[in-house]
């Protein structure tokens, strides 16, 4: 039942995404601009660690794509709430968990697709990384978008208006991006900043993907990154499910 319902909801929203070619590509624009106009600044800088500057930057941009994209996923549910679509579905016997999972999996598909585009562009710019590492990077993007989209939908079910939702998301994503060292490795900074960044889940993810991109798959970074990504996803989906079960109540 759950699988069938999830597939149904996934299909509905995947078709919705496919109808809007613009939305399909727009999300990749910002990281792409970073790649084009920020990436070349790094090529000759000493960033510490192994590999080229692209192997440091691209993992960060992948997470940035997920962070800024998936965090705003909830906007669609605010629109659907005002159209009455959410309640219309909630009076049917459909699984409440499927209403969340179908949407979240659509988002994961969309952002992995955009991540692929981004990596292709990066290859053209000069990125060289082992294929397994690149695939591991996509898996992290998928897990991160599942987590962030779940939380975003949960928040959107609670706040109900775009006027509250937009600023709340902005106020969270901006410091998260700065603190997690997505653009430049935090190890370059003072100790306090490096320590502070370990309080965001993204720090562990970006360290893990950077290791994957230089072909180091059995490091402590990889272990912590994987654990944090899975724990974050489990927590976010639990919160999301709870809100979807009791929404309106």
């Amino acid at each position, binding site marked *: 039942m759950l699988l069938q319902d999830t597939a149904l909801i996934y299909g509905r929203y995947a078709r919705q995404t496919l109808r809007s070619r613009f939305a399909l590509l727009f999300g990749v624009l910002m990281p792409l601009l970073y790649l084009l106009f920020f990436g070349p600044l790094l090529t000759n800088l000493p960033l510490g660690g192994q590999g080229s500057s692209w192997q440091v930057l691209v993992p960060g941009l992948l997470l940035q794509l997920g962070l800024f994209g998936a965090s705003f996923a909830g906007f669609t549910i605010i629109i659907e709430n005002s159209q009455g679509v959410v309640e219309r579905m909630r*009076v049917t*016997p459909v699984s409440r968990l499927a209403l969340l999972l179908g949407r979240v999996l659509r988002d994961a598909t969309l952002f992995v697709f955009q991540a692929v585009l981004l990596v292709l562009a990066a290859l053209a710019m000069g990125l060289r990384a082992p294929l397994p590492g690149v695939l591991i990077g996509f898996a992290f993007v998928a897990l991160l978008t599942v987590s962030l989209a779940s939380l975003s939908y949960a928040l959107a079910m609670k706040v109900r208006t775009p006027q509250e939702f937009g600023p709340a998301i902005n106020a969270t994503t901006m410091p998260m991006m700065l603190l997690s060292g997505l653009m430049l490795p935090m190890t370059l900074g003072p100790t306090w900043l490096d320590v502070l960044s370990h309080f965001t889940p993204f720090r562990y993810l970006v360290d893990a993907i950077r290791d994957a991109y230089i072909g180091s798959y059995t490091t402590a970074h990889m272990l912590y990154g994987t654990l944090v990504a899975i724990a974050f996803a489990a927590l976010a989906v639990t919160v999301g499910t709870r809100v979807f079960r009791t929404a309106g109540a």
Partner: protein
Amino acid sequence: MPIISTAGLARTFQTKRGPVEAVRVIDLTVREGEILGFLGPNGAGKTTTLRMLTTLLAPTGGAATVAGCDLATDPAGVRRACGYVAQSGGVDPQITVREELITQGRLYRLTKAQAAERAEELARDLGLTDLLDRKAGALSGGQRRRLDIAMALTHRPKVLFLDEPTTGLDPASRADLWALIRRLRDEHGTTVFLTTHYLDEADALSDRLVIVDQGVVVAEGTPTALKLAHGGSIDASLQDTFLAITGRGPVPADAAPVAV
């Protein structure tokens, strides 16, 4: 046995400014095959009651059964038995009528083939056949309402809840919808529970009226009985009766203003 019965149904919302009792005590029964008009001023708790009876909102007090299923212990049973059309409807304007109808069928666990067939059948029944491939956003108000109702009828529910179904419709579309509601009851024995602000509509459609005010049932009976009891005679308008019951008039005809 009544198809809907509630006992002390209540809902209090916790807000920053303290608790708001949207619904205090709703006791009512609805017989199978009845068209019940659920009336009350704005903010009386009509929509909140409807949302509780359709499992969208958990009551904070009291109990209810719908089609033999207990609201608290068997919400899935309630969902199978009832259809609900919210004030705002509930279709995505970007999606075609056919896709919405088929998805709705699938949400009610029909197979793909069954859902496609049911969509055609509903479209035939509700005069939407020529509109199947149009986007929901391109429909007129009346067509849109028929689509909303078609969606709610997908699983042939025993009870249909309609929240202000004719608000914003032109007179012809309203007449159309009244005929549809009567037909549903006459042909399928569907129980219809509807809220409205149009008292002519309540008068023309309902077998019985339940009037709520400030979250409490303040009167109930056939339109005629209510007119007699509260409006003074069976010739009283339902408008005057309604105002008499909810305590906002009517003003006696000879009352002169105290000051001009």
